């Protein structure tokens, strides 16, 4: 399996690189460089619309999905599906948003769009009751299980302080594009959950993170090279307390906001403000910024604000 994958990917990479070089599109083979047409905004924030409409507007400002996804690519969309609650409770990413993102990916030529989460509650009930399974199906994406350890492969986190190794879902490793779609919530232990914290749903052993300096582990994971090329934070119904699961609808504030960024530290810093907190007071954001994983200072960011 591993050998086959290796052969396939190395032959593929060789052929692809050759082909691209011959067409003169050098930038595509150089990792980390944006595709043409991508905006230079650090953050795009939209307020006042429905999730899908806000995404349409936001992704356009980011240069369109075509600047993140190209034809034939395999895309992983990772929402937060952690809890067995209905969409009204705001504990999971809004299904309408997930659906819209998948549609954009497919329109941009994605070969396949996968969605999964390593849930906290029973995964089958989470997938179903969050409305996300249905949304993914409707959009033409593929819902993938994340319930068994056998779906996860061990990877090393280069230069991780506390987290040096972790088991990551095979789709994170095998897909070409990774889109992170967290829902913004209060969090009882990390104080806030957003883009960085959402990665606890792509690894198997969360307990290790909890028992080995949670905030440092969250920041450390951001060192792993397979980073999301796009972060979309759902702040439509924001859980202001009792997070991350929430006790009732009364925990929610209807902020009708969506944020998009390629910088997950930046998007989390902006998110913190919606919870009425300073970014630096959220330890994992501060640590990640200090490690040079992204921008935290909102004053120096190039933010594109839009209202609907």
């Amino acid at each position, binding site marked *: 399996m591993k050998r086959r994958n290796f052969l396939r990917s190395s032959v593929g990479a060789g052929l692809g690189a050759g082909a691209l070089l011959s067409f003169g599109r050098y930038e595509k083979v150089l990792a980390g460089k944006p595709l043409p047409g991508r905006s230079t905004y650090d953050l795009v924030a939209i307020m006042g619309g429905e999730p899908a409409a806000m995404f349409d507007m936001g992704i356009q400002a980011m240069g369109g999905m075509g600047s993140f996804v190209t034809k034939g690519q395999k895309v992983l969309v990772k929402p937060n599906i952690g809890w067995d609650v209905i969409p009204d409770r705001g504990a999971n990413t809004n299904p309408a948003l997930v659906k819209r993102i998948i549609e954009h990916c497919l329109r941009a030529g994605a070969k396949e769009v996968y969605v999964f989460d390593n849930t906290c509650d029973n995964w089958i009930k989470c997938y179903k009751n969050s409305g996300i399974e249905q949304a993914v199906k409707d959009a033409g994406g593929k819902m993938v299980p994340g319930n068994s350890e*056998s779906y996860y492969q061990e990877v090393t986190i280069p230069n991780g302080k506390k987290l040096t190794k972790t088991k990551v879902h095979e789709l994170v490793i095998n897909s070409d594009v990774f889109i992170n779609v967290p829902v913004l919530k209060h969090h009882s*232990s990390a104080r806030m959950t957003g883009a960085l914290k959402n990665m606890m749903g792509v690894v198997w052993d969360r307990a290790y993170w909890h028992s080995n300096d949670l905030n440092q582990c969250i920041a450390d994971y951001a060192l792993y090279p397979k980073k999301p090329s796009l972060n979309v934070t759902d702040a439509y119904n924001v859980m202001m307390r009792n997070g991350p699961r929430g006790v009732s609808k009364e925990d929610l504030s209807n902020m009708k906001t969506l944020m998009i960024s390629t910088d997950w530290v930046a998007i989390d810093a902006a998110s913190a*403000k919606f919870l009425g907190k300073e970014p630096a007071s959220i330890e994992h954001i501060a640590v990640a910024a200090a490690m040079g994983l992204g921008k935290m200072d909102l004053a120096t960011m190039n933010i594109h604000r839009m209202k609907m």
Partner: protein
Amino acid sequence: MKSSALKHIRTVFSAFVLLLFAFIFIDFRGIPGENSWGPILYLQFAPSLLKFIIAGAVTATGFIAVIVLTLLTGRTYCSFLCPLGIFQDVISRAGGLIKRRFRRYGYKKPWTILRYFILFLTAGILLLGGVYVLTILDPYSTFGRFMTYFAKPAVLFVNNLLASLLGKFDIYTLYRVDIKPNELVTYIVPVLFLLLIGFLAFRYGRLYCNTVCPVGTLLGLLSKLSLFRIRFDESKCTRCGRCAMSCKSSCIDFLNKHIDVSRCVNCFNCIDSCKENGMSYGLVRLRRKVTNESTTDASRRNFIAGSLVLLAGGTQLVRSQNSVPKPTKDSTVKEDRLYPVSPPGSIGITSFTSRCTACSLCVTVCPTSVIQPSVNEYGFAGIMQPRMDFHRGFCIYDCNRCTDVCPTGAIMPLMMEAKQLTQLGKAVFIKDNCIVSTEKTACGACSEHCPTKACHMVPFEGNLLIPEVKDDICIGCGACEYACPTKPYKAIFVDGNPIHEAALKPETKELEAVPSDFPF
């Protein structure tokens, strides 16, 4: 009816029943949805009887239907409806394929003393409020354990192989499920019974049903009064003995043209085997011979009297052994659990352990596997009776699946709203085990998972937060204990309520105004 149609009807019908029951216990995907097994389990004799006599449930009249069926037709139940009985038929068929002589039974004398002793022991202890013997001997529960403990993991193994294969082709309709074995001790009884029943069925047909099974013995007694029976047509019988050879119950004494009705399970193999059409199934002929009766009666009476005396002593013994479970207390153990946690709907530990036959249906349907067979948490006699094992999983807030399926009434139905306010136990926080206190780093996994926020975070040293528990809104679901990352002892655990209590609803408050502009 004389034709062999009866046997074929039996074969087809019982195959269907066997597959259905196997499916009920193996179905790990919850395919038919909620609340669907009730009508099928309704006719299972021992669970229905238990639900009726102990829980007083008027809906549990399935056993009455079985009694009526038996009084009319004999032990039809044993061949048509009992999954363990049908399972044995499959094994004895396999035995016959391997060695033909294993399928040649012939008449044998019954183990009268043993079978009635077991029946009286089971019934007597049951009447005194102990379910222990029935737990071990109830055929439905025994079958349930075979399926849950052995067949399900095997099916999961095959499923996982297929799922891995399909996954390579990007197909995820099948998903892998991690196989986690139970505590080893809980396998003792199922393994012994699998060996015993397997061997007896393989070699001797229905010997187990006619010797050990208390349901079989009870229905056997009733079938002595049955209206429909298998009978010889004296004019056609050539005394060839084929019928006796084919009888899995070894109950046909063809030389004397006598059939031991109490052991006949209405498999109709004998009718099928008779070349002369000399056997049929029909209304009993009132042709009583009084000669033999008096001799058997005396010994039987003595036996009954003897067993009752034995019972009186025996039940005392059992009673003193276990009425309320002993706390598994050990001062050096950090998780100082006084009581085990019984499943929601079980009302309390004593009522649960006196009704549960450990069929393991709740174990197998539980989506999180938090319901696990116990070892000695309920005391020795409670082995295999399920408890909530929060190291394995936690009880889902919006789930009452186990309360829907229990056929004995050990777990009573609970509406969702009621279940969410039923306190199985209370979370106890052990600060000295907690990461926040020992490592001075953030954790809070317990509070994250808490559905009511009974477990919430309060300021601790510096910027840190540490858990605190509000007892009155805690429902004892064990999410905190499950999520707690400390080893080997958890920093938060649920101590069971010996009798389940009512929890308060968590309070809700309105939030301040929603911001209308970007805060940055």
